[in-house]
Every structure is written in C-alpha cells, then in structure tokens.
C-alpha cells in the first residue's frame, strides 16, 4: 500500500517494499531506496543510506499523522495524508484563506485585549497582545472583521495554537 506524505509544497508518494530487520526498501516517487533504519532513542532514528550516516529526530505534531522532522541542518514539517486528512483539507479550503479564529502560535500570557465582543475592527488592527519570555506579540486581523467571541481575558495563560478570538 502506498501513502502520500506532504512536505512543504511537495506531495510525495511512498511505499514500503520490503523489510528485513533494520533494512527496508521503499519506493519514493519512483525512486528506489534501500536503507538501514533504527530507532536508537525515543524519536531519534539512525539511518545508513549508501553508508552515509544520518541522524533524524521526529517530534509528533498535533496528531499521529504530523511530524516535525529534524535532519542535520534542516527542519521539515511532514504530514501523512490519508482519506481523513484529505477530507479535512478540502473542507478547510472551502472556508477561504483567512481563518475565523485568532490563535496564539506560542504559549504565553494574555496581557492586553483591545476589543469587545461585537466590535468592528479594521484590517491590521491589533486585537490581543500575548507576552512570553519578556517579549510581547501582537495579534491582528488581516481584513475588516467583526469580533464574534472573546475566548480569553487579560491574565489568562494560553497554550500554543489555543483559539483566543472568534471573528466573522
């Protein structure tokens, strides 16, 4: 069975052809790879490919299908695409580019909420200010919007990706 994995803008097609201990053969976008792959620490793989030694670290993302993959110098976001992810992706597309939720990309503490529910805000206006590690980040709307719901108040601690404001 072949799988599709998304990495940056690339959708890669990959299939496991054989497996013998650490040695696997995979077909990746019509290219055949044979490599020696071994999980040496939790989430850390040692890979020998044509005798080149790679150390690859995986950190699971929001779910079991998403990974941050660190190789020597680069970091990739990789997502396994199956029927479920495809459905979610398609739905998302229908909703247009801008999101209707303002979420915090980092954990922190809400230090300012500059709007009330029902406010009309202009594109570029700051809605919430979150502070982490002595640095403040402002969260703005990208286009003219109406504040539908405030999910946080000043003093709240927010985690990464936590929705803070619903707009429409």
């Amino acid at each position, binding site marked *: *069975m*072949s*799988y599709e994995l998304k*990495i940056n803008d*690339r959708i*890669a*097609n*990959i299939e*496991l*052809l*054989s*497996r013998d201990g650490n040695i*696997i*053969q*995979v*077909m*990746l976008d019509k*290219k055949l*790879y044979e*490599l020696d*792959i071994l*999980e040496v*620490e*939790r*989430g*850390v*793989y040692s890979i020998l*490919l044509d005798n080149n030694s*790679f*150390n*690859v*670290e*995986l*950190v699971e993302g929001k779910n*079991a*299908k998403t*990974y*941050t*993959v*660190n*190789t*020597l*110098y*680069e970091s*990739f976001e*990789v997502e*396994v695409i199956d*029927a479920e992810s495809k459905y979610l992706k398609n739905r998302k597309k229908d909703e247009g580019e801008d999101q209707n939720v303002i979420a915090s*990309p*980092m*954990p*922190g*503490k809400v230090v300012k909420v500059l709007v009330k529910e029902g406010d009309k805000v202009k594109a570029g206006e700051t809605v919430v200010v979150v*502070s*982490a*590690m*002595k*640095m403040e*980040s402002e969260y703005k709307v990208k286009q003219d919007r109406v504040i539908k719901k405030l999910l946080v108040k000043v003093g709240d*601690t927010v985690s990464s990706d936590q929705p803070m404001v619903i707009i429409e």
Partner: protein
Amino acid sequence: MIKKVLVANRGEIAIRIMRSCREMGIRTIGVFSEADRSSMHVRYADEAYFIGPSPSVDSYLKIEKIIEVAKTSGADAIHPGYGFLSENANFSARCQEEGIIFIGPDAHAINTMGDKITARKTMIAAGVPVVPGTTEPIKDLKKAVEVIREIGLPVMIKASAGGGGKGMRLVKEESQILDAVSSARSEAKAAFGDDAVYIEKYIDSPHHIEFQILGDKHGHVVHLFERECSVQRRHQKVVEETPSPIITSKVRAEMGEAAVAAAKAVNYHGAGTIEFIVDDNLNYYFLEMNTRLQVEHPVTERVVGVDLVKQQINISNGFELAFKQEDLKQHGHAIEVRIYAEDSDNNFMPSPGIIKHITEPLGLGVRHDGYVYEGYEIPIYYDPMISKLIVWGETRSEAIARMKRALYNYKITGVKTSIPYLSRILEVPAFVEGRYNTHFIEENQQYLMPRKNCDGQCEDVAIITAFFDYITKLEKIQPQAITKELGNNWKDFGRKRSILRL
C-alpha cells in the same frame, strides 16, 4: 567564613553559582516560584524554598521574602546572579542591615554606576575617557556650534528633554552644522517645549568591548582583560569572545588601566565589568559599569583560568585577592554563544515548551552551562536563554571550528532554538575575519537568512523516516497489517504499486 549561600536566581546562572559553592564546601539554598518547582536549580540546591507566584515581580524580585528565607534557612550570604536583584542597591543595603553578606558591591557603588549622569561625572573625575560631549544642556546656537567644533565631527545632537528620536540629528559634514543645530532645536521645542540640546561624539562603527575587573575589600583592583561583545541583536549580546580580534596589546594595557581606575573611583569590591565603546581607530570611551557577574563571564574564566564566582565569594569573605595584575595572562581564545528558546527564523519569536530530547555537545575544549533536561517545560515567565556554550581553542580559528563542531552536535527538540542561527553567524566572512562591530547583524542579513543546506536526498530521508515511524505506529495498533502487505515481498512491487495506489 561563608558556609551557606542563598542563590537568589534561577536557570543556568543559579546552577553555575551552586557548582562553585559545592567545590568550596558551601551549602546552597535555592528559591523558587510556582513555575519553577521542577526547575533544575531546585534539584541542584541542598535546600529549596518556595517564594511566590510565577511572575518574577511576585517571587524573584521580592526583597523581603528572600531576606526572610535567608534568615529562616540560616544563610550567611546571598548571591544575586545576574538580572533580577543583582543591581538593586536597596537589596544590597537591606542585606547589610540584616547582617547577611551580599555577594556583590555595596549600595554606593551600585547607585553611582547605576545613574548614567553620575557615572559619567565620576569617570571624568577619575580620568577615564568618556564619549566626548556636553555634560550640561546647551541653550544657544553659538555655544552649540563652538562645542561641535571642539568635539569634532561626526556628532549626534540630542534634545535635552527628549526621547524617541525627536530632536535628534546626526552631523557628519561641516556644512550641515548650522542647519542641524537649528532644526534639532526647533523640533525639540515643538515636541517637548524645551529647545535645549546635548551634543555627543558619534561613534561611526562602534565596537562593544568590556573589561572584567575584580576588587577586594582592601583596595586592590585587577582587571582580567577584555571581552568583545559586538555581535548584538537589539542590544542583546549574541556571541562573545576573548581576546578581542581588533585590540592591540598596547590598547589592552591602557584600557585595562582605565577599567581599574573606573572601579577604584567607586571603591568597588567584587566582580564587575567596565563596558567601553571603541571606534575603528581603537579610541575607547567608558560606556557604563555592570556591578555584577555578566552572562558572558565564562570566556574570561577559560582564557585567564580563574573561577570568578569563587573570587566573588573570597572577596565577600574579606580575603585579599590571591593574585596581582602581573600574575594574570590570557591563554588561547574563548568564544561563547547563547542558546535561546526562540524561532530565530520567524522574527525571533519566543518558543517556550517541553524539552523532548536533548543531546549536549561534549569533549575537548567545550564548556556547557545549561539548566534544562528532557521532560522539562521551559516556562513563559522568564528569559528565553536555555544555555551557554563556551569553547576554547589555541587560536581564534580553532575556537571557531570547535564552536561549529559543538553546535553541530547540540540537539534540542520540543522547542525551537537559536542553534541554526548561531551556526550561520560563525560562517559570516566578517566574523571569521574578526572584522565586525555592533552593526554586524544588520549588515550581514544576507548571510543570516535560513538556508537550504542539504540536497534533495536529505528531504527524502526526512520523508522516509516519518513514513517509517508512522507505519511502525500503525503496526502496533493493527499488528500484521504492514507485514501482511509485504507477504509477496519486494519482487512483485510493480504489480502492487499499480493495484494498491490510492
């Protein structure tokens, strides 16, 4: 003799201080906020006391609470580290009142050096060069022009009442002088209702070079040479090294003498740092004094071979310095980088979170001062610094090669770090050649952008690894699902590919 030290700090510096205490047979008291129960300094200390909520204003900055813990625990001294209460004159004074040794200077030295104007006047009196400029506001045009001629171009004109760039003018040419003074004054008048201005020599390509000093309570002061700290981003030091790649031994000796004179002018005792601004012609001017241990103190420790925290404690014990100026030498070259939990490629956004995995660089010439461990959650409340990496080499180029090797082998997952950004700094030609000033980061943006360092194979390996991990997980949930698929093995993969493709 100090037998029990309360360390009024957290993170790497708390542990660094406790290490020296342990080597001296001194018992250590840690203090911690709500967010820091699981922090390494609590685990490293002999005793640990809770002091309040996570925001530092409610815990690490609470003078009375910390004094109370010192008394309860029977600590005879307090080490403030850097940041927090380290340059707080009231805290130094309160300790003295309570009969607790403050490991740092007295309130007088902190106050004198803490106020820029007073410090400047004190330095002038002591014969330490300061950036040439007026000490009093100038209210008339003629006087202003006279002063500019005296100082020499280029100069910066600043509104006396000012701030935010209003009423500021950089004057580089003779012909601009009159215009610049007039327009600065009228802008200042409009903005602040006061047309008085200051005039200061403008240093075109400034180097930030600082001298480490140590003074005992018997009037002896020595310097431990310089640290070059010109690699800065938004006035935050990023890379520090010693010796400075631009300084000559003649200028080093002169600046060292100036640094000692600066410290003596405030009867300084303890460890301190005299910061200078240095131009391309190696003219140097006193900038300010940091009356505490610096983040970058390890490069000095490595090259001079002195444990500065031990010296601080010995001085606090009232001992005389064990060495004279002529006993101190620089051996080889040391570089320090600061590892931050931040996404350097995304506007340096802070990246608190849980450390999933960490591999620390080790081996010859590498010192690592950190505090995080696997499973530790870096809190949102404090400085994003995770650790400091300090390397030593016989030469500057060996030190750079060693730092690259160490960064290459330093892996932290779970949070984003500045490690890739630091690696890029070490490759910038101006850095490699040692020709850089405080404009280094802005002038070298093109070298500091994230780069693709690996060919397509690297990306393919990333995909294969994620894929392999994913199917291994699947297999654990549905055993045989994967192996069954492989039943006919790879020989007939062509057939399978055409049939099974989704």
